[in-house]
């Protein structure tokens, strides 16, 4: 059984909106509820830890009630960084395995979660091939990359809870910052295989205003039953 560690601590600064994006409406529903509703139907996920700013706990709880979410949901405080938020959430994870996902990625189907859960490896990430060329550099080109060697890291990911906690403790000790967790496990537990599960072109992370517009179309095309 899994605990879903659900990151909802974003402030929406890149969306240029006073309300963080996970609380905006997408297809008539708060972004955060798209995943929480679908996950509610997955038996392998026993409970949920939502990591969010303290001031949003009450409104999320209200939405959970309004949408009839039945799973137990606990709240952890968002940290100053994503990594700190994951660490805070991990402290409330009870199950031996954890699925990490974030509210800004609402376009994951129930069956996508189930594909991730179904792989025999206990540590896995969704990964999608990169369809464009990538070079090293900043103001000038500084090197080449091999596209076929790269993975576009998507969420959700799943991990043994113990391994992820250990990795976060080590990262904290060393003062290292990671932007996702599969890389952290890879670094601190190199002996552990991390399976890459085929990702989806629709697993868009909502970051900017234009993503919300694109998101409406993705919802209609992938999730709405009306064709």
């Amino acid at each position, binding site marked *: 059984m899994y605990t879903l560690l659900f990151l909802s601590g974003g402030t929406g600064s890149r969306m240029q909106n006073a309300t963080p994006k996970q609380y905006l409406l997408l*297809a*008539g529903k708060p972004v955060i509820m798209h995943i929480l509703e679908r996950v509610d*139907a997955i038996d392998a996920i026993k409970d949920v830890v939502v990591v969010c700013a303290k001031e949003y706990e009450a409104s999320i709880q209200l939405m959970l009630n309004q949408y009839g979410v039945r799973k137990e949901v606990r709240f952890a405080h968002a940290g100053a960084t994503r990594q700190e938020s994951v660490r805070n959430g991990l402290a409330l994870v009870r199950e031996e395995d954890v699925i990490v996902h974030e509210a800004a990625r609402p376009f994951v189907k129930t069956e996508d979660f189930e594909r991730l859960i179904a792989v025999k490896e206990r540590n896995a990430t969704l990964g999608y091939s990169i369809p464009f060329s990538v070079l090293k550099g900043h103001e000038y080109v500084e090197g080449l990359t091999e596209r076929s060697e790269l993975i576009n890291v998507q969420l959700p990911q799943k991990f043994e809870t113990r391994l992820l906690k250990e990795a976060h403790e080590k990262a904290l000790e060393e003062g290292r910052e990671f932007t996702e967790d599969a890389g952290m496990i890879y670094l601190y537990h190199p002996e552990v295989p991390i399976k890459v599960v085929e990702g989806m072109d629709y697993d868009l992370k909502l970051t900017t205003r234009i993503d919300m517009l694109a998101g409406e179309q993705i919802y209609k095309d992938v999730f*709405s*039953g*009306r064709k």
Partner: protein
Amino acid sequence: MSTCIITGPGSGIGRATAIMLAERGYYDHYALVGRNDEEMRATQKEMQKHLPEGSTKLYHIDLSNPEQIPEVVKAVNEEMGGIDALLNIAGYTDPQPLLTTTLESFELTYRVNVFAPFMFMRECVKYMRQKGGKILNVASTAGMTPRPGWLSYASSKAAVISMSETLTAELSEYGIMVYCVSPGRCATKLRRRLAPDEDPTTIMQPAEVAEVVCNLMNREERCLDGQNIIIRKQMRK
């Protein structure tokens, strides 16, 4: 097992639809919701001629008090093992021109015609969204074109049409289909209040509307949700 909730089953389109659905056997259980016990029992008796014993149950509420609806829907879900279909058929009218329409009359019309269907849909969707289902709202052609003297009724039916179209899109992900039908002149008690001098034998009959409604509630029907379906009869002169 499948369960269908029908509001306004005591007379008119509600009664005709309830009996026709029972005849066709589209659902296993029926929850009949209304306030007129005598009329609802008469409908129930007709329905039971076509159904196994105990397939129907009456729930007495006054739809002008939609606050009671969550409790009723919860009870239906618990007592009948789920909710698969909802038919919002009950209606109310107090036809008045603008200057004689009171706030109380306007509000009562909206309570029965708009707030009650809204509450039924909201509460039923909580149970339906796990496995999908069908919702059908009965609006009216009065909700589509100007009807001087019917302000509250016509505007309430326009709201029903709009709610149905919006919720078709909003509930699609759950596999819930939302239908809307707008009957024209139909020989019901409500029509009698709107047009007291009209000969009811010269206009469409409730069973003819029920025929369309039942066809939509057939589980094989998967294409006609989300549009305002106008039901008018071609009368022979």
